[in-house]
C-alpha cells in the first residue's frame, strides 16, 4: 500500500529498486527503507520474538524498538526501519538472537 494522492503532500517517487525478501523478488523505490518497502509490499511479519517465537512487525519506525531486526546481506540484527533500501539486497527473517561470528 502506498499513498498515491495526498491532499497536501506531493510524493515524488524515485527509481525502482529490486531486492529479495526470503528469496522472493520485491520492488521498492529510491528513498524507501528496507522496512517501508516490505510494508508497501504487504509484508507484515518481519521477525519473531526470541523466546516464544511470536510474530514481530513494523513498530517504532525510528530505530529504537528492535521489532524490525532482520538479517540483511547476511548481517544479523539490522534495524530495517532505518536502513536505506539498496539494489539487490537480500533481506531475511531472522531466527534467534543473531550471530556476529
Amino acid at each position: 500500500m502506498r499513498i498515491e494522492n495526498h491532499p497536501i503532500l506531493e510524493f515524488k517517487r524515485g527509481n525502482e529498486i529490486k531486492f529479495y525478501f526470503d528469496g522472493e523478488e520485491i520492488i521498492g523505490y529510491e528513498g524507501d527503507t528496507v522496512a517501508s518497502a516490505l510494508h508497501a509490499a504487504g509484508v507484515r511479519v518481519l521477525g519473531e520474538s526470541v523466546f516464544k517465537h511470536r510474530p514481530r512487525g513494523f513498530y517504532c519506525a525510528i530505530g529504537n524498538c528492535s521489532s524490525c531486526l532482520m538479517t540483511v546481506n547476511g548481517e544479523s540484527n539490522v534495524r530495517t526501519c532505518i536502513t536505506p533500501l539498496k539494489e539487490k539486497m537480500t533481506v531475511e527473517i531472522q531466527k534467534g538472537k543473531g550471530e556476529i561470528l
Partner: protein
Amino acid sequence: MINKANVVIVGGGISGVSIAYNLAKKGMKDIVVIEKKYLASGATGRCGAGVRAQWGTEMNCRIAHESIKFYEKANENLNYERDIDFKQGGYLILATTKKEKEQFEKNLKLQNRLGIPSKMISSEEAKKIVPYLNTEDVVVATYCPIDGHINPFKATDAYALAAEKLGVKIYKYTEVLDIVIEDGEIKKVVTDKGDIETDIIVNAAGGYAKQIAEMVGVDLPVFSERHQILVTEPVEEMLGPMVMSFSKNLYCQQTPEGSFIMGRSGENEPTDMRITSSWDFLDKMAKTITHTLPPISELTVIRQWAGLYNITPDRQPIYGETKDVKGFFLAVGFSGRGFMVAPMTGLLIAEQIMGEENSIDISSLSLERFEKGELVFEPSVV
C-alpha cells in the same frame, strides 16, 4: 514498621540480605533490613557480577572459593524458584607483562594448594576457549573453570526471599537518617518511616558506608569511586568465560540472555557519589574491547551506567565490630568485589554477631588494622 529489633542491617544489597539470611538461619529473631531504594539498587545491581576464586592471598582465595561453592547451589540452598543464572564458564585472565606472569605463577601455586582448579595456559590454549581473542599482546593467561558470573538482581532476590521466609523484615524505600547512641552503646535507628530500637547495627551500606558510620562517630578510611559499565544488544552464545585483564584494564562477559556486559576503571573517576555516565568511558571501553575481542565491535551498545566502589586504603573489605561502638558491625569497603564474596560475608558477619568462632579467620580485616598500620596486601585487585 516494627519499633524494636535485635539486629538492624543498613543496606539492601547482596551483602545486607546475605547477612540477614545467615543470621535468621542461625536462629536470630527480629532482624530488619533497611534499604533506601529498591533491593540491589546500589553497587550490587550495577556491578559486573563476576565471581572468581583466582585471588592472591589465602584468606581471599578461601572466602571467594567458599562463596562460589555456595552460589553453585544457591537455587537449592535458598529454595529459589527462579534461577540466579550462574554461568560457570570460568574466568580467563590475560597477562600482558612478564611481571604479571610471575605474579600469576605465585597466585596459582597458592590457589592450587587450596583446591582451586586454576591453571596457566598459553595464548594458543586461550584461543581454544575464545577463538576470536586477539592474543598479540598476551604473554600468558590463567583459567579457572569454577569461576563465572551471576545475575546480581536475582541473587539478591533469592537471598531476600529466603530471609523473609525465615521472618526477616525488609523495609524498602526507607532511609536511615540517624543512629542514636548512649554511653558508647547503640540505642536506636532513626528512619524516615519511624524509629527502631536495637542493640546491634550492621553497616552494609556499600557506597554510603562512610555516611552511615559517621552517624555513630566512626570515621571509616573509605571513599566511593565511580566505576562505569555498559551493555550491548544480545546475540547468540559466543563467549563462555569472563575475560579479564588487570594490565589491559578490562572485564567482559556475555550474559546467558546474550548481551555483553563490560567495564574498565577510569583514570580520573569522581569520588563525590556521582553515578553519571561519561563519553570518555564509552570511547575507551569501545577501543579496549575492540582490540581484545575484535568481533564485539559489531555489536550495538544498548546503554551504559555506573556504580560506586567503596574503596579502602588496602582495597580489602572491613569486617567486624568496631572497638569504639559496641554492637556496630561493619561489612564495608569491598573495593569492587562485594558481590562475589557476599555468601561468605553473610556467614562470617552472622557468626560474629552470634558470638561464634569464624569459619575463616578474618581478624586481619578489622577496622583497627589501619590504626596499627597492618594493611593486607592482595596482588589480584582490579
